């Protein structure tokens, strides 16, 4: 918690670098006015009296300043300048539990982790008071060693977090240098599709579709399908077209047959109208019309199929 103030959701709290008060000072008049432990609503909290009294309204912010029981414990240890290996468990547990009790009294919602830690500390304390059996279970980790291991592990990453925060980072410490580019053309590379992918997709669609069994999709050969599109395009925008215009003798019989099949199919689907004014007169075709007139055809983006 050294260094920058943290975002705790309580903007008026400013933690300052912790200078541990000398534990041996019995006078209770610790001179650290210039080193407030916390600033609550603008008022520095400079005193952490020996009875650990914290102004009630500061208690919640106090708790929020810690990242959990390990952090609080580390604070208590560091505050007394104790080597982490030499934790005076009894004293630290007492302080820790006092904080917890105080917070419970204040009815603050206390994360369960704090209570678990209190229990752990109590357990360690009780173990220390009991005589150790000589053939102690070797497999069982000494709870105090486990606690120390956790504390040190946590401390490493707490430090690592500070180190990361100290790195020169974008936005805060360095800015990307950029020159203006005029007339830049952003080109989007379009995705590639293989024929295989297309066919696989089609097959999956058909496999899912019960339609395939019920209806006869694919009755018409693709040549007819393609011709249907082409005929429709040719009919678009024109009022009427002579039947003979659509049949190009140059295409040969296959071509004419395909066109004819396409016309029949379009007629069946009612997308074209056929008009014959008199018997044996010219046959005219047009795209099927809505009730009133005009075959409106929006721009088809200029691609011509043929």
């Amino acid at each position: 918690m050294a260094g920058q103030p943290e975002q705790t959701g309580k903007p008026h709290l400013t933690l300052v670098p912790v200078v541990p008060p000398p534990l041996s000072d019995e006078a209770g008049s610790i001179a650290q006015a210039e080193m407030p432990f916390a600033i609550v609503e603008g008022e520095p909290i400079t005193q952490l009296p020996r009875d650990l009294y914290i102004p009630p309204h500061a208690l919640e912010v106090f708790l929020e300043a810690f990242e959990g029981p390990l952090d609080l414990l580390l604070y208590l240890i560091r505050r007394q300048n104790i080597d982490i290996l030499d934790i005076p468990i009894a004293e630290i547990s007492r302080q820790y539990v006092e904080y917890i009790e105080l917070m419970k009294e204040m009815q603050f919602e206390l994360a369960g982790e704090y209570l678990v830690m209190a229990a752990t500390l109590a357990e360690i304390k009780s173990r220390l008071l009991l005589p150790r059996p000589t053939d102690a279970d070797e497999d069982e980790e000494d709870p105090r060693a486990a606690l120390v291991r956790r504390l040190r592990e946590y401390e490493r990453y707490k430090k690592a977090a500070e180190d990361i925060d100290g790195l020169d980072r974008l936005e805060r410490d360095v800015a990307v240098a950029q020159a203006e580019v005029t007339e830049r053309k952003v080109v989007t590379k379009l995705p590639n599709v293989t024929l295989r992918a297309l066919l696989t997709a089609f097959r999956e669609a058909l496999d899912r579709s019960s339609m395939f069994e019920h209806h006869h999709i694919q009755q018409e050969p693709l040549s007819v399908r393609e011709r249907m599109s082409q005929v429709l395009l040719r009919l678009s925008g024109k009022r009427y077209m002579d039947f003979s215009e659509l049949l190009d003798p140059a295409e040969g019989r296959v071509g004419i047959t395909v066109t004819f099949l396409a016309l029949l199919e379009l007629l069946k689907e009612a997308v074209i109208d056929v008009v014959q004014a008199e018997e044996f007169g010219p046959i005219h075709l047009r795209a099927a019309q809505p009730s009133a007139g005009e075959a409106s055809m929006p721009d088809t983006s200029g691609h011509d199929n043929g």
Partner: protein
Amino acid sequence: MDERQLRNVIEAALLAAGHPLSLDKLMGIVAAVGEVPERAVVRKAVEALAEEYEGRGIEVKEVASGYRVQVKRSMTDLLQPLWEERAPRYTRALLETLALVAYRQPITRAEIEEVRGVSVSTNIVRTLMERGWIRVVGYREVPGRPSMLGTTREFLDYFGLSKLEDLPPLSAIRDDDPEAGPQSDLVDALRALDTHDEDPPNHGATDDGPDEDDPLRNPPAQEA
């Protein structure tokens, strides 16, 4: 602050700002160090920077709202690869839609939805149109006059097809249907109708002979 330092601050400011900086703004930044510079001095430093950039790929340009550093016009073509973005891959829904348009054209959106069992997003249709692969070929005269979609020549070109018929038949797609589908029957039938219509002009040995007869591609010799 000496001239070099002044120029450094101005350079850093212009490159960091991301927008043009007026002389006033530049002066404000320089003044923050403690010295209030003369306008002329700052302007001179900007000019010195501009000079320094001569013969480089960037330049100091004065525009309406101030100065900015920009990449020289002569460089931008070279740097074009920087602005090529890769569009996200096509979804399966899009590929299915495209396949249905290809095989069942002309087809309405509702018909595509009927087969796919889900609605076809406007986005998919738009993407396919923008890609130039499908187009509106007409309207079905039913309530709502839905548009009918078909594929384009670009579609064929992209997939290396000379005509729609070159798309593999459904039988090739559905291995649960080993027999040739009706499509090839019909094509065969048509071919039978028309055995010696014309002589294919360039009959590659491995080619499917009748393919060459495609009326759309090979304008054959006039018969009459």
